[in-house]
C-alpha cells in the first residue's frame, strides 16, 4: 500500500511539474514572476466555475484564514495574489493571519483551537500535529463536506489525500507537496575540486568531499544545529533505516536507528564539517553562509528554492531583478545515502492541506464561503501555481512549459525525476514535546554532554507516555 502510494505520489509529482508554467487569471497581476502563469482556456475556466457554483454565499462575508504561505515561503506572493483574486471574484474578504511555518506557528494554531479562536479555514499539517483538533471534532471531514457539496475537491486523487492519524478520515485538502534534498553551492564545490554529487552518492563519499571543502577553507555543511537540526535529524535517522521502515517509531528499549542517526551527526560535528558557530547561529545565518559562497551543502526542503532565488535578486520582492549568473551557481541533488537507503530515496509527500473548521461549517453565513475558498485554492488552475517543482494530488496535471521556470527549479525537476522513493517525515508523527530532547537537545548530543541513547530514550518515553 505504501509503495503504491509512493508511486502514485511520484507519478503525480512528475506530471504536476507540468503545471508550474500555467497560471490562473486571478484578476490581479500574477504575470510578473517566473512561476506566474497564463490565463486558463475558456473551457477550463468554465470547469472551475462549475466547482465554485454551489459554494457562493448569499452575502459577502469575512473569512479568517491562517496558512504557512508567509515570510520566506516561496508561495507567499502566490497566496496573496490568489486571495485577492478570490475576493474580487466573490466579493468576500479574507482576514489573513498566515505566518512562517515553525514550532511557534504550530503552537499558536493548536492554542487557537483549544481556546475557541480558531480560523475559519486553515492550511496546516496533516500528521500528528493536527491530532488534537481532529480529536476535539473541530474540523470537518471531506466526507461530511461532500455530503452537502458533492463536487468538493472532485479534482483530487483521493488516494493521495492523507488519512488522519486519529480516525482514518480525510480532512486536509492538499495543495503542494514537498521534498527534502541537498542544495549545493557549485562555486564552493568547484573551488574545492568537488563535483556535484550524483544518484549513487554515499556518506563515505560525502565525508571525503567535506574534508576537501574544509581543507579549501570553506564550511562543508550549512546548518544551525542549535536552531534548525530538523533536516539532518530526519536524514540521519533515515540513513540507518530504509524507506520500508522509516515511519516506524522504535520502542524505548530498542538500540534503534535513531541513536545511530544522532551519533552520525555527532561524528560530522566532531570532524568540524558544520559552521564554527553552528551551536549559537540561527538558520538565517547559516543559510546566508550558503548563499554567499561560504558553505557548500544545505539540506532543506523544496520551499528553500524560493529563498535561494530571492537571495539572487537585488530586490527580494521583484523577480525581474534576479542575477541569473549567481543563481546558476546553485544546484540541488540527492542526500548522501547509507545502508539500505539509497541517495535517491528522499523525504517528501503531501504533508499539509486546507481544513475547514467546524466553527465556519456551523456558521450559515460562512459555510459556503469557506467551501468556495478551499475549492478555489485547490482548483486545477491554482494548484499548479503553488506546486511548481513539487507534487500535487490533482487527477489531471496540466501541460508543462519549462520556459516559465528558473534554472534552479529546472534542476530540481531533473533531480526529482530520478527519485526512487518518497517517504514521509517521521518527525511529523513524533509530536512536539517528544522532539525536545533531540531537537533542542541536539547541541548537547553533539558535544557529548548528553548521550544519544539517553536523549532518544527520553524523547521516545515522552511519546509513549502521551499515547
Amino acid at each position, binding site marked *: 500500500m505504501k509503495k503504491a502510494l509512493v508511486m502514485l505520489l511520484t507519478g503525480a509529482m512528475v506530471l504536476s511539474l507540468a503545471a508550474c508554467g500555467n497560471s490562473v487569471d486571478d484578476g490581479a497581476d500574477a504575470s510578473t514572476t517566473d512561476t506566474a502563469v497564463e490565463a486558463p482556456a475558456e473551457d477550463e475556466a468554465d470547469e472551475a466555475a462549475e466547482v465554485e457554483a454551489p459554494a457562493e454565499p448569499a452575502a459577502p462575508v469575512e473569512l479568517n484564514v491562517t496558512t504557512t504561505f508567509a515570510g520566506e515561503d516561496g508561495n507567499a506572493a502566490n497566496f496573496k495574489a490568489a486571495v485577492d483574486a478570490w475576493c474580487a471574484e466573490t466579493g468576500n474578504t479574507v482576514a489573513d493571519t498566515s505566518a512562517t511555518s515553525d514550532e511557534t506557528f504550530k503552537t499558536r494554531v493548536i*492554542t487557537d483551537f483549544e481556546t475557541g479562536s480558531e480560523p475559519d479555514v486553515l492550511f496546516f499539517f496533516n500528521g500528528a500535529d493536527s491530532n488534537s483538533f481532529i480529536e476535539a471534532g473541530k474540523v470537518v471531514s471531506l466526507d461530511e463536506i461532500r455530503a452537502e457539496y458533492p463536487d468538493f475537491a472532485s479534482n483530487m486523487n483521493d488516494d493521495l489525500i492523507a488519512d488522519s492519524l486519529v480516525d482514518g478520515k480525510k480532512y486536509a485538502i492538499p495543495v503542494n507537496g514537498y521534498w527534502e534534498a541537498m542544495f549545493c553551492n557549485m562555486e564552493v564545490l568547484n573551488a574545492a575540486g568537488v563535483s556535484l554529487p550524483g544518484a549513487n552518492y554515499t556518506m563515505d563519499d560525502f565525508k571525503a568531499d567535506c574534508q576537501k571543502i574544509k581543507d579549501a577553507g570553506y564550511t562543508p555543511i550549512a546548518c544551525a544545529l542549535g*536552531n534548525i537540526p530538523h533536516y539532518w535529524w530526519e536524514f540521519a535517522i533515515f540513513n540507518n533505516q530504509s524507506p520500508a521502515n522509516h515511519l516506524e517509531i522504535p520502542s524505548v528499549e530498542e538500540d534503534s536507528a535513531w541513536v545511530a542517526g544522532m551519533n552520525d551527526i555527532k561524528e560530522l560535528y566532531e570532524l568540524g564539517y558544520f559552521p564554527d*558557530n553552528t551551536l549559537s*547561529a540561527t538558520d538565517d545565518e547559516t543559510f546566508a553562509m550558503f548563499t554567499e559562497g561560504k558553505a557548500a551543502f544545505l539540506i532543506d526542503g523544496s520551499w528553500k528554492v524560493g529563498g535561494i532565488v530571492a537571495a539572487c535578486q537585488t530586490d527580494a520582492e521583484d523577480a525581474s531583478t534576479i542575477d541569473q549568473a549567481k543563481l546558476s551557481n546553485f544546484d540541488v541533488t540527492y542526500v548522501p545515502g547509507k545502508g539500505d537507503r539509497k541517495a535517491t530515496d528522499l523525504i517528501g509527500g503531501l504533508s499539509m492541506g486546507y481544513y475547514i473548521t467546524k466553527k465556519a461549517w456551523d456558521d450559515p453565513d460562512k459555510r459556503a464561503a469557506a467551501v468556495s475558498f478551499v475549492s478555489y485554492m485547490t482548483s486545477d488552475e491554482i494548484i499548479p501555481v503553488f506546486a511548481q517543482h513539487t507534487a500535487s494530488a490533482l487527477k489531471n496535471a496540466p501541460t508543462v512549459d519549462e520556459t516559465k521556470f528558473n534554472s534552479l527549479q529546472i534542476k530540481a525537476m531533473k533531480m526529482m525525476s530520478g527519485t526512487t522513493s518518497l517517504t514521509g517525515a517521521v518527525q511529523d508523527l513524533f509530536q512536539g514535546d517528544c522532539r525536545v530532547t533531540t531537537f*533542542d537537545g541536539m*547541541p548537547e548530543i553533539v558535544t557529548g554532554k548528553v548521550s544519544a541513547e539517553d536523549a532518544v530514550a527520553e524523547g521516545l518515553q515522552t511519546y509513549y507516555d502521551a499515547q
Partner: protein
Amino acid sequence: MGANIYKNKKPALIFMIPAFLFMIVYLYYPFFMNIFNSFQQIKTLGGTSKGMIDPWYWNYAEMFRDVNVGVSLKNTLIMMLVTLLGQVGMAILLAIMVDNVKHLKGFFKTVYFFPIVVSATALGLLFNLIFLYDKGMLNQLLETFGRTELIDWKAEGIALFTMMLPVMWQYVGFYFVILITGLNNISDELYEAAYIDGCTTIQKVRYISLPLLRNVICTCSVLAVTGALKVFDLPWTMFPKGMPLKTTFLTGTYMYYQTMEAKNVDYGSALAVLIVVLGFVLSKVVNAIFKETDY
C-alpha cells in the same frame, strides 16, 4: 452638605470597584489558576488538563533535578548583580558627570534616556546585528584592526556577557534620569559652602552628592534588583531557547521555553510560581538592605 462629601466614602468605593474587578479578573484569578495548573497535567497552552499530576508535587520536585533551573537561577542572580552595579553604578557616574557640566545637560539627558523608549525586541535585533558572527559590526571593526579570525560572540564562554551588555545598557538611562532629578534637589548652597571651604569636585561628590542621594540610590537599587527578575524580551530575542547549549536561560526565559516551546505548561506554571516566590523574597531582602533613612 459641603462637608458631608468628604465624610461619605461610598462614591470613592464605587469608583474603586472597576479597577478592583479588573485586578481580580486579570491578575488574581490567573495567579491562583497558575498555582492550580502547576499541579495538573497540561501539555499545551489553553489545553485541557488530563488530571492531577502524580505525585502532585512532581513539578516542584523536578525543579531540584532539572539542571536548567539551576542555570537560570544562577544567571538571574548574575543579572541582578549586573543591573545593580552596571545599571545603577553607571547611572550614578553619568548623573554626577552630567550634573557637573555647564552646557548641553538637556542633550545628554535625552541621549542617555533614549534607549528606554526603544522596544526591547528591536534592541535585541539591533544587537544581534552588532554581535553577528559573519559580517557583524563588532567583528568587522576588529577586522579593520587586523584581526583575521572571527569571534563568535554567542559562543558558550561569552554568551552571558553578550546577553547582559545590552540589557545593562538599555536601562542605564532610566536610573540616570531618577538620579539626576535627585541631584537637582540638592541645594546649591551646600555646594557653594563647600567651594568656599576649598573642596575639590571629588570631595563635593564624596561628602555632599552621594550621601544626599542615598535614598534615591536605594530606590533605584530596589527597582533594579526586582526588575532583573522580569527581564525577558531582549535575552529571548538574542538567545532563544537558552542558546547556546541552554547556558543563557534566565528564570523568565526558561519558564517561557517550557510553556511555549517544550509544550510543558504545567511545569512552566510551577516555574512561574518559583519566580513569584523568588521575587517576593528578594524584594524583602533588598528592601531590608537598602532601607531608606531620614535626615
